[in-house]
């Protein structure tokens, strides 16, 4: 059976979570719209990482008892190590825009809004940017509105920076000192040229760019088995689509 795009992305993000980093991930928080990141955290745990996953929108047995603000208090305390952010636009300095396009922002197309991004980007040490659509429309030279900046001036309180950007085509690593992405791996079927063509911002390209490492057979068995069992209540539609109808 071929590996699905979802499985590939889950494995790629799991690799990023386990990668050596000054901020080890002991606790990750994931929202309702993020089944792939949630599965990636569970896969990293299956592979042996001691990580706790808080599913923010879990309706029954939610991880919080202080209401919606507890997530932000937790992040403020430094007790969330990893968070995922997306963007209607993401630019080459890892700035993200969740509000909309045009000038003023939203006048061309209005999107839901900032959510907690303007805070989480500063208080959570590791952020993985994730957006499946990889096109010049999304990956722009400069966002029309900064919901959360990729980097901040010296002296601005901030625990970390985006670690990487994962799209439907590739993985970019982010260097916060240079405020610049580097192409890190190509998903199967993509080339250096296809990435350059579909990316609106400039980035670095090393001499050797590997293919994105997919899931192992053991990974795939875990995803379809115990991980699905743990996440199916929260992401029923996603699980049915990616892992097929449930065996009776």
């Amino acid at each position, binding site marked *: 059976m071929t590996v699905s795009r979802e499985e590939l992305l889950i494995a790629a993000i799991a690799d990023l979570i386990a990668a050596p980093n000054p901020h080890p991930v002991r606790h990750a928080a994931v929202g*309702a*719209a993020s089944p792939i990141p949630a599965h990636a955290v569970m896969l990293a745990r299956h592979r042996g990482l001691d990580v706790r996953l808080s599913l923010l*929108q879990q*309706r*029954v047995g*939610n991880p*919080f*008892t*202080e*209401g*919606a*603000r507890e997530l*932000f208090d937790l992040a*403020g305390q430094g007790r969330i190590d990893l968070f995922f952010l997306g963007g209607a636009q993401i630019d080459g300095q890892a700035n993200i825009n*969740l*509000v909309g396009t045009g000038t003023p*922002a*939203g006048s061309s197309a*209005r*999107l*839901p*809004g*900032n*959510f*907690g*991004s*303007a*805070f*989480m*980007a*500063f*208080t959570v040490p590791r952020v993985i940017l994730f957006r499946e659509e990889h096109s010049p429309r999304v990956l722009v030279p400069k966002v029309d*509105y*900064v*919901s*959360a*900046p990729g980097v*901040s*001036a010296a*002296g*601005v*309180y901030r625990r970390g920076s985006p670690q990487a950007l994962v799209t439907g085509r590739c993985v970019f690593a982010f260097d916060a000192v240079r405020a610049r992405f580097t192409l890190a791996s190509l998903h199967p079927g993509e080339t250096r040229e296809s990435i350059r063509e579909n990316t609106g911002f400039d980035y670095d390209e090393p001499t050797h760019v590997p293919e994105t490492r997919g899931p192992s057979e053991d990974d795939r068995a875990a995803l379809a088995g115990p991980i699905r069992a743990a996440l199916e209540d929260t992401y029923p*539609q996603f699980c049915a689509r990616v892992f097929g109808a449930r065996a009776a």
Partner: protein
Amino acid sequence: MTPIETVEALAARVPDGAFVALPPDASLCPVALVRALIRRGVRDLHLLGVPISGFATDLLIGAGCVSALTTSAVTLGEAGLAPRFTAAMRTGALRLTDATCPAVHTALQAAEKGVPFLPLRGMIGTDLLADRTDWRVIDNPFAEAPDPIVLIPALVPDIALIHAAMADRFGNVWVGRRRELATIAHAARTTLVTAERLVEGNLMADERLAPGVISSLYVSAVAEAERGAWPLALLDLYPADAAHLDAYAKAARTEEGFRAYLAEHVLGPLPKAAE
């Protein structure tokens, strides 16, 4: 004493022009009361999404009840973008003030504590902060080196609207672990609560239930509203009616579709199971 009234009587307590705090879709949102507000024809509301907005806000916007909105996001979740919000943004009919989730909680906690402001980390360098000229950046007076930090002023809603899982005859209401609803009630001048059911006894006297209670001290009036969050979820009592929300999202893409939805589900004869 907190009076027990009808949902329509609660709606009548909300004056035109009020600054109204609403919980998001996943958190005890009082949709039956929102339908009653639309029937009452309320106008010029300034809604506050705590911290985000969804179906109930989209309904009120579509029905012409809202002139201003302060929120961190507007979304129907799985059902996609909020269509009447999106349309209102296109026509410029809505005065929108963007926020970010923890800033909304912070503003309400400032009101809850009776202080003029609270500080919040982050936001430095965002366009959100550039747009929010009502916020202030000061230099943290406890830091050795320069350390800019944002101060968020207190927000005092005129009215908080909540749907509780239970209410007792004294006006105590049970919202479980959604403690941010207690903060809304503490912060607001008036709190109107619909409850899924009225229970005997005193919720405050039961040590097992009391931790999830908002005391009647903060509750101005209560009405019983069975399935009062429908088509949204209510804790573990019932899930969201995803098919209904999908149908709404589709219908409300056009003004005509929205009008038809209103006529059938809000203004028309109410299905017994829903209201």
